[in-house]
């Protein structure tokens, strides 16, 4: 063991039991204020919800294997894509990395005992579950067929079904997001260990910070929007329906004012995870650390100013369209900066290809495709043809599934030894990473072509000529499903049969690796002091290099 290998010396072995074994009653979990346990509660919840959203997706792809509407009725199909969208966006993607990995890791990464407001943190999980209950109730009580976008006047006047219950679920869950965001902002400002300056923070913390800013600033607008929609639906107050004197475009402005920044909520933390993994498995400091950190801020700020690019054909003024198009091209620049810097980090690294690295490389590839296809839909005249087609579906799945879900799984594997105290089995994990990558591309690449050919989204039946590409996509989805079930199986298996994990199995930098795996309830026996920049892999590896 090399004593000088880490930012801070390994923590002395505490007499305190680890956070998993400190108390094992159900009450000790449901009433915990330990950020690590809350992270686990979120992990279990969003995993269940992911599989609900996933079953809906599987049924959609099964239906779309043939052009006729032969598996389910149109009304059912419409409910399925609404369930898929609502669950995946608000109950999986938005909470995924922040509430699971963020909750678990943020205090560990900055050398704190917990987040700033532990009880608020627990409350956020209860609020989240309360919202999830409404949403699941809405699904059971007849479903909703508005799509996750709830466009008016369809949602407020014409749609049948449990629209209010579904919207209430999303509305309530928003408060969980705000609580988490607020907690993270205060934690990062006030609870960093001595010596841990802003530019010594891991990039994951930077992305959690910027994500939290968006959560706190944008989510209230979603709440307002859904509230106004509900007012119109319940009491006929004319806000969005022109028949009542309202303006349907207003809804879209309000909705996307939240929902476009939400796209960055769904990708920034994934970028943070990727930065951690790339640095560790290339054994190098992230190239252009400050540029990558500032790029997160730029994305968060510009992300608030591009909402109108969802509305180029909506009847919005063409001049507004031009401004939104320009800003959308600009927001692509910081994303490009990140991709270039990750690539440059690999240069002269010492690269290994453990599962987290496979996911991170997959993230870079798929996010690059997702980001670049964003240019097509940012370009005004081209978007006119592509908007509301499968091109858009493919584009945002490349970013959110190819990007965020890959990053989430990469992060889960990377930190699994820390979270569970066990090592996962490497071979099936690599197989599942490759399966997901292959299945993903087969599912979504054909959808780009479908969109170019003009197949609209949210179509239950479609012209025969689109069948071949749809069959390819559905076949890919079945491979993807296998890829997602595998990790569930072997990660659960590893909880019992996996090898016990040492404190720092990857020889990674970062304070979270200086505590035992799993960490004790109070994280650090001694408050760590930081006197190095992050990702000091070169100095860390030097002694061992001398022996080679």
């Amino acid at each position, binding site marked *: 063991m090399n004593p000088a290998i880490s930012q801070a010396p390994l923590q002395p072995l505490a007499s305190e039991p680890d956070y998993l074994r400190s108390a094992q009653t159900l009450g000790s979990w449901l009433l915990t204020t330990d950020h690590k346990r809350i992270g686990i509660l979120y992990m279990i919840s969003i995993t269940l919800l992911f599989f609900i959203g996933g079953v809906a997706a599987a049924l959609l792809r099964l239906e779309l294997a043939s052009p006729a509407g032969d598996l389910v009725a149109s009304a059912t199909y419409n409910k399925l894509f609404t369930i898929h969208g609502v669950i995946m966006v608000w109950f999986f993607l938005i909470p995924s990395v922040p509430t699971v990995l963020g909750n678990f890791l943020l205090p560990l990464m900055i050398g704190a005992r917990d987040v700033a407001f532990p009880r608020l943190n627990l409350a956020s999980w209860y609020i989240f579950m309360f919202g999830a209950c409404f949403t699941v109730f809405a699904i059971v009580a007849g479903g909703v067929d508005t799509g996750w976008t709830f466009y008016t006047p369809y949602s407020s006047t*014409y749609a049948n079904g449990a629209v209010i219950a579904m919207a209430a679920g999303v509305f309530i869950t928003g408060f969980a997001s705000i609580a988490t965001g607020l907690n993270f902002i205060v934690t990062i400002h006030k609870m960093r260990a001595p010596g841990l300056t802003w530019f010594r923070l891991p990039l994951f913390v930077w992305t959690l910070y910027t994500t939290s800013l968006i959560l706190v600033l944008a989510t209230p607008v979603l709440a307002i929007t859904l509230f106004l929609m509900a007012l119109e639906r319940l009491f006929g107050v004319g806000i969005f329906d022109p028949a009542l004197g309202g303006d349907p475009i207003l809804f879209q402005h309000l909705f996307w004012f939240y929902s476009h920044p939400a796209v960055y909520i769904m990708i920034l933390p994934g970028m943070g995870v990727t930065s951690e993994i790339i640095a560790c498995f290339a054994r190098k400091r992230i190239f252009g650390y400050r540029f990558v950190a500032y790029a997160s801020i730029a994305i968060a700020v510009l992300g608030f100013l591009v909402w109108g690019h969802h509305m180029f054909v*909506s*009847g919005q003024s063409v001049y507004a369209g031009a401004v939104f198009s320009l800003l959308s091209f600009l927001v692509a620049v910081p994303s490009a900066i990140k991709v270039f810097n990750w690539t440059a980090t690999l240069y002269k690294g010492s690269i290994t290809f453990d599962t987290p690295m496979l996911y991170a490389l997959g993230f870079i590839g798929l996010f690059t495709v997702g980001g670049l296809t964003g240019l097509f839909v940012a370009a005004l005249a081209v978007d006119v043809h592509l908007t509301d087609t499968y091109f858009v579906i493919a584009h945002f799945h490349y970013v959110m599934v190819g990007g965020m879900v890959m990053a989430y799984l990469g992060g889960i594997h990377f930190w699994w030894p820390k979270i569970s105290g066990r090592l996962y089995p490497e071979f099936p994990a690599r197989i599942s990473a490759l399966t997901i990558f292959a299945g993903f591309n087969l599912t979504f690449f054909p959808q780009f*072509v479908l969109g170019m*050919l003009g197949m609209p989204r949210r*179509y239950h039946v479609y012209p025969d000529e689109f069948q071949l590409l749809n069959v390819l996509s559905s076949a890919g989805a079945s491979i993807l499903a296998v890829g997602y079930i595998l990790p569930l199986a072997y990660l659960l298996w590893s909880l019992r049969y996996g090898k016990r994990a040492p404190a720092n199995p990857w020889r990674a930098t970062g304070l979270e690796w200086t505590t035992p795996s799993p960490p004790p309830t109070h994280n650090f026996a001694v408050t760590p002091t930081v006197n190095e920049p992050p990702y000091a892999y070169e100095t860390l590896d030097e002694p061992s290099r001398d022996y080679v």
Partner: protein
Amino acid sequence: MSFREAIELLTSSASEIGRSVDAIFWALTAICGFMVLLLGTLILYFCVRYRRGSQADRTISGVSQTPLEIAWVAIPLLIFLGLFVWAGVVFFHMARPPDNALEIHVVGKQWMWKIQHPDGRREINELHLPVGRPVVLLMISQDVIHSFYVPAFRTKQDVLPGRYSRSWFVPTKTGVYHLFCAEYCGTEHSRMVGKVYVLEPAEYSGWLAREAEPNSVVATGERLFLSRGCAGCHVAGGPIRSPLLEGIFRKPVALANGTTVIADEAYLRDSILVPNQDVVAGYDPVMPTFQGQLAEEEVLQLVAYLKSLTIERQKSP
């Protein structure tokens, strides 16, 4: 669809604007394809060359960071700005229908497209067009938001309730093309589809004549103008002093609240359905609303008639 047909569909559009859109599309594809190849190659190369245990030279040769960062901010930025301008110019062209365009009325409703040609002929979920002539669709929805999408023309425009929207194009190739509703509009959204038939001009005239309507759109509008009582007031020396409507289209109108609006289709429509919203300066707000008494098609016909008054006035000085 065979492979050749697919390539044909991807590379050829059936409208004038389609060529410009496709040019940008393929330029984007080339740029993005190049970027993916470049990054993919670099990543693969680094991964192989700098895999752990390889003998590659890893001494840092003083790569200066800032110039590199500036380069990969500036170069994409310039390319992006170029693409923005190019696509913007084409988009602005799409937004400005020429004055001589053939105006066809489209009313969307759950779940069908109702279409009326200027000479009065109506069709549902089908649109017959002459090749080579600019066509402008004046569109409105009776209920929720729909979107009129003809992939072969590369044009799409949301069709809103309570507000006119416009889409225009010049069909360049005869043939049969898909018409889709592209904005989710409820249960039968995916069945709100139809066909666009682009015909030779002579064929189009023949098609119009085959089931000739007794009255053109303007003539129907004129009949409505008389039968609904509009003509009772909007004449010189009528019983109630009312604004005269000859030549009103696209002219500025001074309102009682001191502002001025241009009398476009939206203004004419609102003045029929919500007359007290924009009262003309110097007149009393006495006109009754026709909200709920006229179908959207009838409002379109009335508006077409009011627009025609301009032309007649110009013709006969």
